[in-house]
């Protein structure tokens, strides 16, 4: 029986093909055998035509010797924690399969520059697809970082890009009183290609973790479409704003903290951050899973709110329109009676804006006042809806007292509320 990677001969009625048997991705049409010819090309052969398959040579994957990395006492130590995602996956060029297995040696081999920046330690903690990460993972990730923090000068975390900003927001609340940088990075282009953004992202992230005088959680990915510098964005003020561009991670409602250049230069753009300290970080990774994030849109069925209330949800974030509106006029579409029910049941309702940019306002229009004064909805200032969701889950993990929930939601804890907006931060 031929296995993937084996060198085989396929014999059909009138033809014969020699090559490497390739894997067939799941979900693709069945009934096709794919082989890689000696020319390098793959070829799909209809299985109905195949009379016989002979194995010419069995495949044994090559194990390559890893280079040793030395320890340099003069350099800071950075721990790279990999959670999965493109940046820490390798391709098996023979079969085209992708697998995740990254050691410190692999990172250094991929980016030799790292050796001059820091002593690299690597830890493959989890292997998660970004879209599958859930609140339990956040709790685990926080614990892993918390443990690792004690023995290094800074941490780099790699994960898939899709929900990276949820993870950075969660870590911003879960890791209290950080005295060191925790820098998240990722890549938008797979690292089998020489043009991948992974290399510069990793170098810049390690540079920032090693020597930037910053304590907190931030993301570090491309600032532009050029491979020129990365931008460091506060973990609670960053969002993935493009499906595929390498500069997809943008700051929202503030300037990036800094530009980080691959040669190690760091240019601060926003001085509003904490410096490194000897603080012992406190792990506070409680999270109320019965927290929801709902997007408001014209024509939506307002009963969705009732659904969550009946399921016992403790808190709901509404990504409302602009300043913080939801439909209230027409009975069929009005959220009013359901928000009233939420209020009566003690369910916290937080209002953020789906415009992402700008601040919500509880009083400008009478309908806003209806929500803010009448129904006691919590207007979350300029917090991103995703950040508001993470924060609400974390707050509810700590308290059920609605007055305390309100107080904590409106208190700026990790830089999630910026009370002074400058024009330059819009669409940065």
């Amino acid at each position: 029986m031929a296995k993937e990677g084996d060198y085989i001969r396929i014999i059909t009625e009138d033809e014969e093909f020699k090559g490497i048997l390739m894997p067939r991705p799941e979900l693709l049409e069945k009934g096709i055998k794919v082989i890689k010819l000696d020319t390098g090309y793959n070829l799909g052969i209809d299985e109905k035509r195949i009379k016989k398959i002979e194995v010419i040579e069995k495949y044994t994957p090559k194990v390559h010797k890893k280079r040793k990395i030395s320890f340099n006492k003069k350099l800071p130590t950075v721990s790279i924690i990999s959670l999965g995602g493109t940046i820490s996956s390798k391709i098996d060029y023979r079969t085209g399969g992708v697998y995740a297995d990254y050691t410190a040696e692999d990172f250094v081999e991929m980016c030799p520059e790292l050796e001059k920046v820091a002593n690299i330690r690597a830890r493959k903690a989890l292997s998660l697809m970004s879209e599958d990460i859930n609140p339990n993972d956040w709790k685990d990730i926080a614990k892993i970082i918390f443990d690792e923090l004690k023995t290094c000068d800074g941490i780099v975390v790699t994960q898939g890009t899709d929900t990276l900003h949820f993870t950075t927001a969660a870590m911003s609340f879960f890791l209290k009183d950080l005295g060191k940088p925790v820098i998240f990075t990722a890549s938008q282009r797979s690292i089998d290609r020489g043009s991948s953004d992974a290399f510069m992202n990793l170098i810049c992230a390690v540079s920032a973790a090693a020597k930037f005088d910053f304590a907190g959680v931030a993301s570090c990915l491309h600032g532009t479409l050029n491979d020129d510098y990365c931008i460091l964005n506060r973990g609670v003020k960053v969002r993935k704003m493009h499906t595929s561009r390498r500069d997809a991670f943008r700051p929202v409602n503030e300037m990036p903290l800094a530009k980080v250049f691959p040669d190690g230069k760091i240019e601060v753009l926003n001085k509003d951050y904490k410096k490194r300290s000897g603080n012992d970080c406190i792990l506070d990774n409680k999270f109320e899973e019965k927290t929801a994030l709902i997007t408001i849109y014209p024509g939506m069925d307002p009963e969705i709110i009732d659904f969550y209330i009946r399921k016992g949800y403790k808190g709901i974030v509404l990504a409302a329109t602009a300043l913080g509106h939801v439909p209230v006029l027409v009975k069929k579409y009005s959220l009013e009676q359901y928000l009233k029910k939420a209020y009566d049941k003690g369910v916290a309702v937080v209002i953020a804006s789906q415009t992402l940019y700008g601040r919500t306002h509880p009083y400008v229009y009478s309908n806003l006042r209806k929500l803010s004064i009448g129904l006691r909805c919590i207007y979350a200032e300029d917090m991103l809806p995703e950040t508001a969701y993470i924060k609400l889950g974390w707050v509810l993990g700590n308290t059920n007292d609605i007055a305390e929930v309100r107080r904590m939601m409106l208190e700026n804890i990790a830089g999630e509320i910026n009370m002074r907006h400058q024009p330059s931060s819009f669409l940065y």
Partner: protein
Amino acid sequence: MDEKKDYKKIGFRCGIEIHQQLDTHKLFCKCPSIVHDNNPDITFTRKLRPVAGETGEIDAAAMHEVLKGKYYAYEACSTSSCLVEMDEEPPHPINEEAVRIVLEAAQHMNAKIVDEIQVMRKTVIDGSNVSGFQRTALVAYNGHIETSKGIVRIQSICVEEDAAKKIETTKEYTKYRLDRLGIPLIEIATDPDIKDPEHAKEVAEKLGMILRSTKVKRGIGSIRQDVNISIRGGARTEIKGFQDLKSIQKVIEKEVDRQIELIRKGKKINQEVRKAKPDFTTSFLRPMPGAARMYPETDVLPVKASFDGIEMSELIEDKIKRYVGKNKISPDLAKALAKSDKADLFDNAMKKFKNLKSPFVAETLVSAPREIRRKYNIDISSMADKDYIKILDYIDKGMIPKDAMLEVMIDFTKGKFDISKYKGISEEDLEKEVKDAIINNKGASTGALMGMIMAKFRGKVDGKRVMELLNKFS
């Protein structure tokens, strides 16, 4: 070396590889396939890093280059490039029209097609592909064409992306333009069945003819030929950069001479890529690349391939035969017409207009524009097919005399066409004009009278009729 060489005796082996741009939008995005020199409105820079090979090891020399800081600069126009070329958006599904064109060409070359087309990433490290790889897919194999010196087998027929064009090299960076990147190419590789240099030219011509019979781009840079040559005791060299088909034969002859000479002197011949120069000699371009690393392009789904529903266009050589045989057009004109982009228009016109003779229509479509350029230095190549049809329709209905053709075409191009200008004068009026001319110009020769009348009524009267009247009344 003047005497004719016996190429069989010297162990001559030669195969051709042809890259031809297809006339459709780009292969993995919806950008139009246009190469132009507009000012770029997009610029960006990238670094390309060597990545781990099959063994998991990274090439040290290549990494050294990167660490020195060399980078690639790219420029593009938003009219012809999008995020896909910039490697900032995943590829769209493969352009189905491009696949159809390649399948059609494959059928003309009697090739077998794969059951399923698998798109590959071929690693390219010179920056000419922003992504660091070229997307390419094998579509057909084991074909053949017939030539005067026997069958030449076709090894493979692929569809692939064209690369970006290099425009500047400095110590710090290499600069490329992106408009060409992603234009679909058909790549045809023959087996080394070519018998001699003259045969190479014939094979290149034949393949070119087949390709031009399908929907491919025309003009400079749209087709590129590479030739692989070796002789016994020599080494395989690949020659690129032929100016035109005519030079192929001479360049191969000179390359064979070069190898013979080196063997005679006992020198080693390197496997290498050489560049054809205008004087038909070649110069070293780069070492022969090793087998390129190819691995699957997982962002593009494989495509089922079948000849079903592929419309086969008539080959140019068959068209020429038909024009000469059925349409009674002179061989030269038939050839020019068949090779031009007016062949379909001609066939349509012949179906539509019953009063027009085929040589006249062919001349209108092929010779007239050339004549206008030569005589009046006016370029009418932009004239639309529907305008040709309009003009032919007027002539078919007798509303415009044939003699007025050039003038009408010029007016059309300038947007000044007015049918009333060409309205012929009535038979009685013409008779009167002729009589008056004879009376008023006593003693003038028939030729002179003819000239006078034609000058006055240029484009409105048929010269043949005027001559008849002159002969009748003088």
